């Protein structure tokens, strides 16, 4: 392992790429600490300290997790990677609905590039919306409900516009940094940036648990390592469906005749169902705070406030969350993996699964296998995302509990992917890599 790392650093090409990536990450973290001009820094620190002791951060849980704590500090990169993720999700869903986008997706590389371009435009639009929303929240004092201090320096409209513009530009800079990593560094830039933000919260949270409860800390560490091992195990798990390619002559050349396999991962959907479910469950709570009459709430609002607001360690919330995740796993797998398309492509290039006729029977077989395979995958995702909520009630941990489902999935997923890419680079020069 260590020799592999030294070898990676001894290869000049790879070393440059790794150093470049590290440099971008450093820039990114710097921007996450730099406060937006117009924010009252000392007051916001006071409010943050108050907010952490009570569980107020839960409202912005996921967004704050993805921004590595930058959001509640209203820093330049406060929005973090979230607008880009939201934009990608929206476009991904729209490709199913809008025929033009679907046609673009089928076009191959040129079409995908166009969709990426749309994603980037949408990201800026969303960034304007979200930054306006958060500045408005901060201005009206709803960002920290318990805190009496003034968060912004001035209530005038001009400085607020400057802040919104700065934060939007910050989002575009993040997008650019991510693309730079993808282009010249190692791994997928956006996921590495998310990885950085998630890991950045780790030491702080662990220290908090350690200070409040030493025995709990030990339990958390042991459970955490066990969870990581389990997640790595499941993430690597895949079903390999053998595919045989027929030999064929094109001119004087012989093609095909090879046998390969289609890898179907147990957790084909990755982290995305969890993100969908959390953002959807955030909606009723938002609606209740926006439209709810606080002095005299009616039945529905009272129900939402008891079960879906701050205290989420109850059976209603957990069951809804779990079911939503299972549903979205199936939904997302059905979007990303189209058995009919795969079967058609295989038929086109003369491939077949041994024992199954090409065409429709192959598509049916693939969808049958995928449906059965996704069942344990979705259960695993659901259970994993319930871990932080359970931990929330057992030990005194906050919403962005470091060994929570979302963070672990991101860390393991991105980590494995990046190591694999480094290894692929390393293997161009010598054969022994990290993973054996």
């Amino acid at each position, binding site marked *: 392992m260590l020799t592999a790392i030294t070898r990676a650093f001894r290869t000049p090409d790879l070393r440059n790429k790794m150093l470049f990536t590290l440099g971008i990450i450093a820039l990114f973290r710097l921007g996450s600490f730099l406060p937006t*001009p117009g924010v009252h820094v000392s007051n916001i620190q006071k409010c943050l300290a108050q907010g952490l002791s009570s569980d107020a951060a839960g409202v912005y849980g996921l967004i704050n997790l993805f921004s590595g704590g930058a959001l509640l500090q209203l820093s330049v990169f406060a929005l973090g990677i979230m607008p880009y993720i939201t934009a990608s999700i929206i476009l991904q869903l729209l490709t199913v609905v809008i025929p033009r986008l679907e046609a673009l997706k089928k076009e191959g590389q040129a079409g995908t590039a166009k969709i*990426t371009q749309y994603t*980037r435009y949408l990201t800026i639009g969303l960034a304007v919306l979200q930054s306006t929303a958060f500045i408005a929240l901060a201005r009206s004092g709803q960002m920290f409900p318990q805190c009496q201090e003034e968060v912004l320096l001035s209530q005038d409209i001009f400085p607020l516009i400057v802040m919104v*513009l700065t934060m939007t530009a910050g989002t575009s*800079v993040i997008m650019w940094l991510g693309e730079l990593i*993808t282009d010249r560094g190692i791994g*997928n*830039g956006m*996921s590495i940036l998310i990885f950085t933000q998630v890991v950045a919260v780790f030491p702080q949270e662990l220290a908090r648990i350690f200070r409040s409860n030493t025995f709990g800390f030990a339990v958390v560490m042991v459970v955490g390592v066990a969870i990581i091992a389990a997640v790595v195990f499941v993430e690597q798990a895949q079903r390999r469906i053998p595919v045989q390619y027929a030999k064929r002559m094109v001119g004087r050349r012989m093609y095909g005749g090879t046998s390969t396999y289609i890898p179907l991962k147990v957790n084909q959907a990755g982290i995305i169902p969890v993100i969908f479910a959390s953002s959807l469950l955030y909606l009723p709570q938002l609606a209740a705070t926006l439209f709810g009459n606080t002095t005299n709430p009616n039945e529905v609002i009272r129900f939402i406030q008891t079960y879906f607001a701050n205290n989420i360690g109850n059976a209603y919330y957990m069951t809804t969350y779990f079911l939503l995740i299972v549903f979205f796993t199936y939904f997302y797998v059905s979007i990303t993996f189209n058995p009919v398309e795969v079967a058609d492509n295989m038929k086109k290039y003369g491939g077949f699964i041994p024992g199954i006729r090409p065409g429709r029977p192959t598509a049916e077989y693939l969808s049958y296998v995928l449906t059965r395979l996704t069942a344990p995958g979705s259960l695993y995702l659901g259970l994993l995302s319930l871990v932080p909520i359970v931990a929330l009630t057992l030990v005194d941990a906050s919403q962005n509990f470091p060994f929570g489902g979302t963070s672990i999935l991101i860390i393991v997923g991105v980590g494995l992917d990046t190591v694999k890419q480094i290894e692929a680079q390393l293997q161009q020069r010598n054969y022994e890599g990290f993973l054996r």
Partner: protein
Amino acid sequence: MIIGISIALMLASAIMILLVLLHKGKGGGLSDLFGGGFSSSFGSSSVVERNLDRLTIITGVVWFVCIIALGLVLKP
């Protein structure tokens, strides 16, 4: 003073957004985001792209300086 820097910051932000949008998007879609396949990008960048990079970096530095300056001026 404050208004001057504010306007400079707004200009820099707007130019920054424009320049970033002018770049060709290199990020893969959502499927690449969390443990997707390899998206190895070959192909060297063209002259246009390189000049755009340079411009973006310069604007970025100006933007950064503006933020720090405005933050220092506004500091209570």
